[in-house]
């Protein structure tokens, strides 16, 4: 039965829509205690004293832990999330300084919201009441908020062992950019600012620690994307072997990025200390202030080209505001660099990246993680060049796209995993042509002016992106048949909205000859599978898809071998249908999976997939907007996505990823901004001020799949989770600039708020008036 590629209904929905999911707050354990984090109200301060006596005396309080109480464990996180190869470090002139993030602050706090104490009470209400009684005496210091000031000579240091506040840096040179820029006939350049945003799932974070019992090890349930990696961090923190720990993720109401957080470690420590389960559930204010901050770069960029419109060179200088600690090292600015040339043939390339510490919340990769930033900057530069040359942007794009015949194309640099960065597959010109046609681009261009109203200006913007997906290092899966004959699929990668239980079961089901909805699936539990990767970087369809396929192929072989013995028939003559194996053309004779499974040796196959490197998804978006010239309000009026994620496992699921990705990108383009004041106080602390896109802000989106399977895995799958976030800001920004083209404004900053847009419009109008007066 063909399943891969079919728009089969999501198996998750019935449970989720009937309220049967079990999220973090739904997990119940006997004698469970509730914890709350006492956080720093200051961006930078010395801690003079902490007095928890009043809190300890309050009703229901069990313990108040401070840094002094963290005995016998590592006091800080110090291991960086990704490791880099020596060759990579040398090739791209990498500097990587120390990372240190206290689990609980001891003498000083480096950001608003930093955990200072962990208060544990019999229930949440008691914990919230008592948390107000913990008295912390701070001596506030001037915070370092602006990353450009942080790297200026003589700046105070966020942490003493990171001189100049530069925690990491790199320099990529491809070709001979200096000569190419010099030789180029034309150039456009600008300083681009990408606002800080917050990956905001419906469910906030949460974790519960459960003490070891005779049969079960110390267990942490966490709303994490990376149970196996969290277990490694926990083992390091608790100074115990990984085997003594179990980490599992329950149902999750979204995530969009993450990493490792102090609270996940603290619940384990507290549970072990107190001998009772300890649960921590984040509230929305904590979430907006402390979790999944991302983007936040200042990028100086220059595109050099000839009057013929041929791109010659691209330069970028990236200043990444990392906040007070940089768990992820080069990840964000290097992702910008890796995706900076997008779909275009640009042979000469020069990028530097600086990871700068400031007294803000730690920056983290969130959906797109550098791709939206890179794509926005490039999209803007391309449209600036088109204006400069008097060419339609779609034409200029077409002239510079890498042609399909040049695939695979070596990009002359290494990816973060140390492998040469190679665009492995895709047909970019076809993608653009398809998008232009679907959008009726030329027709809409012709009608653009007559359709505009007195206050409304209409614009069209194009964006194209690439998306390196399916990052390693590995993923593991097991496929087995239990005694009842049920196929059970277990995978290290766990979902937080990606439809693993549907798509991975489609892969296993098609291989094993059983419907996907009859397969039992289990994800994200170190107690079930010794190794596992996780879900991040658009990797699950690629890595989990490939490993589930590998394990399923192996299990199929074993099923057929066993059946061939029982049926006395050559395996090549056997077919599997709906969980029964029978000789081809003899449906009356068969043996069921259940019969095979009870036959003795376990019917099981486990596999590990180690991707050679990332594989390249890509997409082209076209957006149209109506801009209210007087109020600066931007409305999206049309949206087309053409997407290449290789083999499409389930088009409905990929469409869902595209819808969500575009919505996320709309948020980044027009709405979402985490704003700090000069004192390092977060001003956008609630959903009244931090604006997520709602259904009313998202237009109908037409999605067209133009798949070009990758040769890098057996399924031909490329990731699809982040690409749509990448292109939305560039497409929308270009459309807004296009709408206002008589004014020749440039949009270099995200989000495009109505006020910012009005200011740009007014400045441009004033300039035009001045120009007329000058004439």
């Amino acid at each position, binding site marked *: 039965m063909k399943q891969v590629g079919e728009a089969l209904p999501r198996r998750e929905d019935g449970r989720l829509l009937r309220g049967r999911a079990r999220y973090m707050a739904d997990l119940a354990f006997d004698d469970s205690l509730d914890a709350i984090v006492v956080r720093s109200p200051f961006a930078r301060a010395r801690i003079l004293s902490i007095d928890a006596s009043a809190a300890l005396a309050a009703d229901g309080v069990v313990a108040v832990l401070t840094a002094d109480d963290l005995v016998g464990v590592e006091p800080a996180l110090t291991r960086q999330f990704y490791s880099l190869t020596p060759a990579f470090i040398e090739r791209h002139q990498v500097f990587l300084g120390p990372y240190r993030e206290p689990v609980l602050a001891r003498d000083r706090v480096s950001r608003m919201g930093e955990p200072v104490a962990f208060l544990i009470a019999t229930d*949440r*209400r008691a914990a*919230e*009441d008592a948390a*107000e009684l913990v008295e912390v005496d701070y001596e506030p210091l001037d915070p370092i908020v602006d990353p450009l000031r942080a790297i200026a000579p003589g700046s105070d240091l966020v942490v003493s062992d990171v001189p100049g506040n530069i925690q990491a840096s790199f320099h990529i040179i491809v070709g001979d950019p200096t000569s190419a820029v010099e030789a180029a006939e034309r150039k456009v350049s600008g300083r681009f600012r990408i606002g800080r945003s917050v990956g905001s799932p419906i469910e906030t974070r949460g974790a519960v620690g459960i003490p070891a019992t005779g049969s079960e090890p110390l267990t942490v349930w966490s709303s994490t994307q990376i149970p196996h990696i969290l277990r490694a961090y926990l083992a390091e923190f608790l100074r115990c072997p990984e085997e003594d720990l179990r980490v599992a993720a329950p149902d999750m109401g979204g995530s969009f990025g993450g990493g490792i957080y102090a609270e996940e470690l603290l619940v384990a420590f507290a549970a072990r200390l107190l001998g009772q389960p300890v649960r921590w559930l984040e*509230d*929305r*204010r904590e979430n907006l202030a402390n979790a999944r901050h991302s983007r936040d770069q200042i990028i100086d960029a220059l595109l050099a080209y000839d009057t013929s419109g041929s791109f010659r060179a691209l330069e970028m200088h990236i200043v990444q505001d990392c906040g007070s600690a940089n768990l992820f090292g080069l990840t964000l600015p290097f992702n910008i660099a890796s995706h900076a040339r997008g779909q275009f043939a640009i042979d000469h390339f020069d990028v530097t990246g600086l990871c700068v510490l400031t007294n803000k919340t730690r920056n983290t990769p969130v959906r797109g993680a550098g791709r939206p930033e890179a794509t926005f900057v490039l999209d803007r530069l391309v449209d600036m060049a088109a204006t400069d040359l008097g060419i339609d942007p779609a034409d200029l794009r077409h002239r510079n796209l890498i042609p399909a015949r040049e695939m695979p194309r070596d990009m002359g640099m290494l990816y973060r995993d140390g492998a040469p960065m190679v665009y492995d597959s895709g047909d970019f010109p076809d993608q653009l042509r398809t998008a232009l046609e679907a959008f009726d681009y030329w027709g809409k261009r012709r009608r653009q002016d007559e359709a505009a109203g007195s206050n409304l200006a209409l614009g069209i913007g194009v964006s194209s992106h690439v998306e390196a997906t399916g990052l390693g290092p590995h993923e593991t899966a097991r496929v087995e048949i239990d005694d009842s004959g049920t196929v059970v699929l277990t995978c290290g990668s766990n979902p937080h909205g990606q439809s693993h239980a549907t798509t991975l079961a489609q892969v296993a089901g098609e291989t094993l000859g059983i419907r996907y909805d009859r397969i039992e699936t289990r994800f994200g539990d170190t107690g079930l599978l010794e190794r596992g990767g996780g879900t991040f970087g658009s990797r699950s369809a690629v890595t989990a898809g490939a490993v589930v396929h590998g394990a399923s192929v192996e299990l199929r072989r074993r099923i057929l071998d066993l059946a061939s013995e029982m049926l006395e028939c050559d395996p090549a003559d056997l077919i599997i249908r709906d969980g029964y194996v029978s000789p081809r053309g003899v449906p009356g004779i068969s043996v069921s999976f259940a019969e095979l499974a009870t036959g003795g040796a376990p019917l099981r196959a486990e596999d590990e997939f180690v991707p050679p490197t990332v594989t390249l998804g890509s997409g082209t978006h076209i957006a149209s907007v109506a801009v209210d010239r*007087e*109020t*600066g*309000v931007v409305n999206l009026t049309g949206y087309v996505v053409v997407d290449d994620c290789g083999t499409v496992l389930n088009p409905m699921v990929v469409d869902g990823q595209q819808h969500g990705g575009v919505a996320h990108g709309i948020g980044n383009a027009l*709405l979402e*901004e985490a*704003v700090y004041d000069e004192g390092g106080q977060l*001003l*956008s602390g*609630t959903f*009244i*001020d931090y*604006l997520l*896109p*709602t259904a*009313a*802000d998202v237009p109908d989106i037409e999605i067209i799949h133009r798949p070009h399977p990758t040769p890098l895995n057996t399924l031909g799958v490329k990731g699809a989770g982040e690409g749509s976030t990448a292109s939305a800001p560039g497409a929308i920004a270009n459309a807004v600039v296009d709408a206002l083209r008589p004014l020749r404004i440039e949009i270099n900053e995200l989000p495009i*708020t*109505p*006020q910012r847009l*009005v*200011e740009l419009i007014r400045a441009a109008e004033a300039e035009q008036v001045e120009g007329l007066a000058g004439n």
Partner: protein
Amino acid sequence: MIPAPFSYFAPDTLEEALSLLGEYGESAKILAGGQSLLPLMAFRLVRPEVLVDLGGIEALSRYELAGGRLTIGSMVTHRTIELDHRITSRCDMLREALDVLGHVAIRNVGTVGGSLAHADPAGEWLAVALALDGRIMVTGPRGNRDVAADGFATGWMTSCLSPDEIVTGVRLDMPGPGTGSAFEEVARRHGDFAVVGVAARVSVEGEAVTGARIALAGAASTPIRAHRAEALLTGTTLSGPDLDAACEAAASETDPVADLHGSVEYKRRLARVLTRRAVSRAYRRASAPA
């Protein structure tokens, strides 16, 4: 996000509610839907020791449209008015304001009186009341009184109510023949608080404006009337220069507070732009044959 401890009372009558307010004084807060109060309590920005819920007082949940006047009990929900076609067909301003007042879920629970008493500077109801010559009905230990909407709010989220008084309702003059109305608003997203909103009512005889009311939300520390702009419009036929002058006047009558969604300058600009749009539409409606 759990409020500080409080006691909760749900009286059946106004008399009971008044006596509770008398007993607990400033430590009590009135719960009238809770769409603003409860989030403030969850953040512990407000810590009443006592909540007096008016939801059980039936007399406050009635409304009546009679003789060109709409009287709304304070516990009537936004949604109740929104769904009453007799009302919204009589008053475009009200229909347009209710369409952007929060979301359906909020309008199902939030109340007219709660919104008025909260006196949010961006509150749509108070702006509408200002533009429809509204009178806010108040009861207290010293008896009943009527307060003109113009003067009800005295500062940022404060009103002329004393802590032992209760808003019982509001009376609004519905636009009659020869009168048009409109509500214009810019919010960052549909259903968000207005960055700036403008309610306009214009009466016309022939082509001349015989009277105008312009109220702005989000343009000062309280919703305000643009008295000068109203005066400038009266007697004109809304020619370009006259309208320009009135819109400039409206903008200059504002005193906006900058926030993440708009600077003072941007909000002034919106006041000017939205006044033009609201007044023009109200004028067109007034002039249109019935």
